[in-house]
């Protein structure tokens, strides 16, 4: 587009300001993780790796990390299966109620997490025990809770892909004598593979990061990484270790973005 040089400069400055706004806080967490002081103060008084060593030795944080990966893996796996099934039903078939379902299906991400969280907590602790199913609050309830929103993420990614890819390829495959399974394996699946990967990664990331629904659906025994961070934030002697874990999470977040970039032809369309 032809913009006046002045407009270009203004846009560039605005962009830099927005990027600074996005990155300065993250950068400060990284810098602060090398601050030897117990109490975080600005500017840092020196440089030290003492809190990094303390954090790497911290078994609580390590167990919480493993718990988070565990929950995210299960929630993503269930969401991939169920989410793509709904996506196929909505994109490939005409049926009564299709429009209302496609509106209802986005509710878990359109409604605030706290509503999902309190609804599920209420169901798990008050309603289910009444009908004889008392599973209590634990890892399973966290996985179920995370699946509700992971499912929507997978659905959004897959349905967008199916809407762009036409069904005529599948029809051609069937006309040429392939069975339903062969058609799925050789024609349909390759078309949606990258959407499944993108949706799955995003679902995994959201589950990994989730705190609100997790706090409400987890009993006292479950400690995912966000819950560990939250519980240790307020303890003054743990604050520097939390800071290091936070810095580590920021550094690790570059990895999924890098892979998402490589996988996707349309990187910004994440389907959130």
């Amino acid at each position: 587009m032809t913009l006046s040089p002045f407009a270009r400069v203004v846009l560039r400055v605005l962009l830099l300001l927005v990027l600074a706004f996005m990155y300065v806080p993250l950068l400060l967490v990284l810098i602060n993780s090398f601050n030897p002081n117990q109490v975080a103060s600005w500017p840092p008084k020196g440089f030290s790796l003492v809190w990094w060593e303390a954090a790497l030795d911290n078994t609580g944080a390590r167990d919480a990390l493993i718990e988070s990966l565990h929950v995210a893996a299960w929630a993503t796996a269930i969401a991939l299966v169920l989410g793509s099934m709904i996506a196929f039903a909505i994109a490939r078939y005409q049926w009564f109620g299709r429009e209302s379902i496609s509106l209802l299906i986005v509710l878990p991400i359109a409604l605030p997490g706290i509503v999902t969280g309190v609804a599920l907590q209420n169901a798990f602790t008050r309603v289910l025990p009444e009908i004889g199913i008392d599973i209590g609050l634990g890892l399973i309830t966290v996985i179920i809770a995370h699946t509700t929103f992971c499912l929507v993420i997978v659905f959004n990614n897959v349905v967008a892909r199916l809407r762009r890819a036409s069904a005529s390829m599948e029809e051609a495959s069937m006309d040429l004598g392939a069975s339903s399974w062969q058609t799925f394996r050789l024609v349909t699946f390759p078309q949606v593979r990258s959407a499944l990967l993108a949706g799955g990664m995003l679902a995994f990331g959201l589950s990994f990061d989730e705190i609100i629904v997790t706090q409400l659906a987890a009993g006292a025994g479950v400690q995912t990484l966000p819950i560990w961070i939250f519980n240790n934030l307020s303890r003054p002697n743990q604050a520097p270790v939390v800071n290091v874990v936070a810095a580590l999470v920021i550094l690790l977040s570059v990895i999924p973005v890098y892979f998402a970039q490589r996988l996707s032809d349309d990187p910004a369309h994440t389907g959130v």
Partner: protein
Amino acid sequence: MPAIVPAEARPHRASAFLHRHPGVRLGALLSAPMLWYFVMYLAALALLFLTAFWSQDSFTSQIIRELTFENVEEVLTTPVYRSVTLQTIGVAATVTVLCIVLALPAAFFAAKVARPRARRALIVMFLVPLWASYLVKAYAWRGLLSESGVINWVLEPFGLSGPGFSTVAVILVLTYLWLPYMILPIYVSLDRLPNSLLDASGDLGARAGTTFRSVVLPIILPGIAAGSIFTFSLSMGDYIAVSLVGGDELLLGNVIYNNIAGGGNTPLGAALALVSVIIIMLYLLLVRRTGALKEL
């Protein structure tokens, strides 16, 4: 349809059956996820709202299952709840507007001005904060805004001080947290907008402002609306960032949380949750007309 396919090439019976009965195929596809969705999510949601019309024994904290409108009435008539609700809507709306204002130039630069290489780098830069943990970001701001934090350190030489832990801090931090959710859908819709339209508008004599208003804005409106669903709804429900940087500030999310998880009055909390759902549903119906739901 008459079979022209020779018998030996005929597909398996199950697959042939499925092929002839799309209804069965559809049923098989829908049954498991719908069962999950209705039982796990919608039923839980419905039960929560039913709870809003029950009451709680103040001594035993047992739920009394008799239809009553006292919670809804309390929520609607108590001045505190009314002001918290209005305050929450105000914060959510302000955050949404700020996110749009910040996202537009950044997304526009990435989609229409930057060269391909710079564009890829910018997209990565927009995405990374989305993956960095919510709590880590809220926590970073707590440090920034604290008494001995960077903001005060920068402003002090000028004789100024930062917002501290306050409503302004809540708006600032929520804007920060949800900004990527606004940039991405706007970027995607700008990316789809053909450059030739912008050139045509310029060739026909429109200035940049006019082109933006009458060509760009109508096309990217669904993207903005999709982003605003996230910024608005996430702000309406947040309680953690609010409690970390808000000082005494209470939003609807905090009151709901305290009532349901904090051992308060569950039916009252449910009634308050109902209020926030109704506000968001109204918002969804409003933006649905722009086609925003397909952009999510």
